[in-house]
């Protein structure tokens, strides 16, 4: 049953890729001078999971957009904008939950703006969000007066530390990713909203013909994804313990790459949250392993780039299988 085999290979592909990357680094990374492994250890994976959080949360939002047939290039800027908003509020005495809500809200507003422009101006999402990439980055810099926004201290700073002050085994950010991934998976698979997203990305004409409110849905999905980018901004803030308007430049590309490695199609209609999470983890492991191998930054870039191309090629190959 070569057909059946191909189908399984296509489904399990991202996971097999992840295992392959882990296996390769396990063999390649040399133990330390005491003969202790340094890659395949609890502590290192705790670090990797923590380093995955920001891209993973962004990837959840991006998966929704990519399934609907769109793209959002302003994600990195939104994350930076969110972190600046949060830092300013905390600096002015706001509590962590207020700051969190504001960061999610700020991301949501940017997404709403993206969605409304895409639906109303009927321009391709690539162009609109490319423009917003610049606009939002500029807005973040203005808001932060062209410098990092520092504050004394905040409980937010604990959300991403591997020191694990509250004994949760993993930092709070990792648990948030796991919870959101499960909820979003259920929403995608079990709700009318999720079903409509797949329909929109799969064939917009069919969706319209069947009475799916396509334009409203576009606005909604960008706004919702924006909330995820805002939340990712909160974890960015927690990680740096300061608001930085120049952070996360180009992060949207890591996020998109994670979604694509996870098996989503840039043509829309295909994608899973689990796949995107595996994609995000694969990216983080690549970066982590590369550091442990003491590869130069340039080599890291080249390798990550090659992995993205291979993943997209696999996507293309799967599309052909369908046609």
């Amino acid at each position, binding site marked *: 049953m070569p057909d059946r085999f191909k189908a399984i290979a296509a489904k399990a592909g991202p996971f097999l890729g992840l295992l392959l990357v882990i296996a390769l680094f396990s063999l390649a990374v040399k133990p330390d001078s005491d003969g202790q492994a340094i890659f395949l250890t609890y502590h290192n994976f705790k670090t990797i999971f923590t380093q995955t959080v920001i891209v993973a949360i962004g990837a959840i939002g991006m998966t929704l957009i990519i399934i609907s047939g769109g793209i959002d290039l302003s994600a990195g800027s939104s994350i930076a904008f969110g972190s600046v908003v949060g830092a300013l509020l905390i600096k002015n005495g706001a509590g962590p939950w207020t700051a969190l809500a504001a960061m999610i809200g700020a991301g949501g507003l940017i997404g709403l703006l993206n969605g409304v422009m895409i639906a109303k101006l009927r321009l391709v999402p690539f162009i609109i969000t490319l423009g917003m990439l610049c606009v939002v980055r500029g807005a973040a810099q203005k808001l932060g007066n062209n410098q990092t926004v520092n504050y004394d201290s905040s409980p937010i700073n604990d959300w991403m530390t591997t020191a694990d002050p509250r004994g949760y085994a993993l930092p709070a950010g990792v648990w948030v990713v796991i919870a959101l991934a499960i909820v979003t998976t259920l929403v995608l*698979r079990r709700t*009318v909203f999720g079903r409509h997203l797949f329909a929109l990305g799969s064939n917009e004409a069919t969706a319209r013909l069947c*009475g799916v409110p396509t334009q409203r849905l576009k606005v909604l999905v960008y706004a919702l994804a924006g909330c995820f980018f805002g939340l990712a901004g909160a974890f960015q803030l927690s990680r740096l313990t300061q608001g930085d308007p120049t952070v996360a430049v180009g992060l949207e590309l890591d996020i998109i790459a994670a979604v694509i490695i996870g098996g989503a199609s840039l043509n829309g209609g295909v994608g899973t949250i689990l796949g995107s999470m595996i994609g995000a983890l694969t990216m983080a492991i690549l970066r982590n392993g590369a550091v442990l191998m003491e590869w130069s930054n340039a080599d890291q870039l080249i390798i990550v780039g090659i992995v993205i191309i291979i993943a997209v090629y696999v996507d293309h190959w799967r599309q052909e299988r369908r046609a």
Partner: protein
Amino acid sequence: MNGASPAPASTATALRLAGVTKFFGATRALRGVSLEIARGEVHALIGENGAGKSTLMKILSGAHAPDAGTLELGGQPYAPESPHDARLQGVAMIYQELNLALHLSAEANILLGAEPARAGVIDRRASRDRARTALELLGHGSLPLDRPAGSFSIAEQQVIEIARALLTQPQVLIMDEPTSSLTQADTEKLFATIGRLRAQGVGIIYISHFLEECRRIADRYTVLKDGETVGSGDMRSASLDHIVTLMTGREVKDLYPRAAHAPGAVVLETKSAASEPRLRQATLRVRAGEIFGLAGLIGAGRTDLLRAIFGLDELAAGEVCVVGAPVGKHAPRDRWAQGVGFLSEDRKEEGLMLVQPIADNLTLTKPGAFGRFGWIDGRRQRSAAQRWIDELRIKCRGPEQAVGDLSGGNQQKVALARLLEHPARIFLLDEPTRGIDVGSKAQIYELIGQLAARGCAVVVVSSYLPELLGLCDTIGVMCRGELAAVRPRSEWTEASIMHAAIGGA
């Protein structure tokens, strides 16, 4: 020979086909086509939709290879490997849809793919000369060569396309429905251009649904029907009736079981409905339990009428009423809520989500009905899909299989099942049996009959006349954007429908 047209420049044969056969899977699209075209002859190729003209043209232009038969070009065996090869050998094609790079200049378009160049650098003077020469041959020497192709009128764009075809000095030029998007005045100019080409000895295959047009421009004709050559002769001495009989005269098999149904109250009405770009005027009334057929040529506005009724296109004028009440602004969502269902003629591009499962395609109009508060109960959804899979005998592995994996007939059944599951009371079916096997066709006819018997109103658009005559209670014929004649089926024949469709009434 009619005095108005010049005699052919030469009587030597340009193109000869004998016994050309072509299969697509198990379907025989062509079953022994013969055709002979002399140099300097305009030859009309006539046939109903689906008679095999497109397939034949694709073979001539090198897009498909025939399975059997002989092709000769200028006395030599002709076996083009690709459209490019066909062009080099001397057979050029002008498609109904123009193929121009609208941002490039007229000159660049004419020379596209044949740019005179040295070491990759385009020889600008030579290209200008060649483009100019080609246009002069067509009597359009004054066309500005530097303007982008998109800035010209459709008729001028067509001239640019013909000029491109002339660059390779073709022996045979194939024109597919060249007047379908032209105004009357532009049509006259095109005929003048064709006259010039004929005088230069080019053999021209002219495909058109408009028989009057063929009679004016063509020297000879060949009629195709069901993939066969059923007649040919001198165009001017042939009567239109004779040609229409050749086109349509076939035995009608008993595919159309008639369940007893009695039309009731009017449930769907359009009053002078019009929409951009094609639908000019349509007034119809469809009753519950009535099967209403819409006949007409491709591009006559039949699909446009259904789309306007369903709210996919905006009404430019007129009114659509469902069960007596005018419907609001365009929105398919509202129509589904009113119990109107639409089956698209284009399964792949519009009708179905090919990569998604059967179950999702089938329940897309209201997935929320399979659960509560926006959550979907997957088991209920799958069991609903399974019910239709059994009922319509859809061949598949199960409700989770992607629709794109199914055969055309089974895909169409999924698309129809969506309307049945909804459930709709008014069915707008655009070419419900296009491209599907006979078994599925018979099943769909039976289903339509049952719907009418249950009191549903059904509007069927079809290009296949026996189907309309076998199935419908009432048939309306559209011609050039207008719903011209609506009569009970008993008052129509294939010939009279064809006459009305080509504007001969």
